[in-house]
């Protein structure tokens, strides 16, 4: 059962453009929404995360937008760079203690010069 749906599966963006990846969840008990970035041959690493008490969180060129009523959240990468080329996973969990994290299926981003 896919509780976190992620789209698109792949994305090609011109250098300097905006990359947008969308996720939707079903379980209203989720209260922590991280995004992980994975480079080829490496394990995923936390990029940015948000809790549902805010609608937006920005860290440098990366922004999460969160819509609690629609149960949707998205990652925006401003001024995309070739070094941002990676696979991005959204995730959702109930925070505290053991984390049963549910991951999206991933978006492979390619930023072309």
């Amino acid at each position: 059962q896919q509780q976190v749906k992620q789209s698109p599966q792949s994305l090609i963006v011109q250098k300097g453009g905006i990359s947008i990846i969308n996720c939707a969840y079903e379980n209203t008990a989720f209260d922590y929404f991280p995004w992980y970035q994975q480079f080829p041959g490496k394990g995923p690493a936390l990029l940015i995360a948000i809790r549902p008490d805010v609608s937006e969180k920005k860290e440098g060129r990366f922004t999460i937008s969160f819509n609690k009523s629609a149960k949707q959240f998205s990652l925006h990468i401003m001024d995309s760079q070739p070094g941002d080329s990676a696979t991005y996973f959204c995730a959702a969990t109930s925070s505290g203690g053991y984390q049963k994290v549910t991951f999206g299926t991933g978006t492979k981003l390619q930023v072309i010069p």
Partner: protein
Amino acid sequence: DAGITQSPRHKVTETGTPVTLRCHQTENHRYMYWYRQDPGHGLRLIHYSYGVKDTDKGEVSDGYSVSRSKTEDFLLTLESATSSQTSVYFCAISDFRQGESDEQYFGPGTRLTVT
């Protein structure tokens, strides 16, 4: 990088043979996880541990068992490997503390091929 190592990093094995993957951490984190990563499926939880000798099943646990005899080590065993278990396996750790990040830290992965 968080102090997580996985061994072996690559393994090719034959159908029906037992395989054990090892995850070792130096962070003294309480929680440890085994995931498998397959195209189109993202990361799926196999088993997790919430303390020494305390483990439980994830969403894709059939055909896998785990053991945790020490805080730092979490072993994943495929009792009788099948081709459907060809995948990349990731270990992760976390250590929730009130008011802090719920981040999971991932190891470098083990690529397993079952022929």
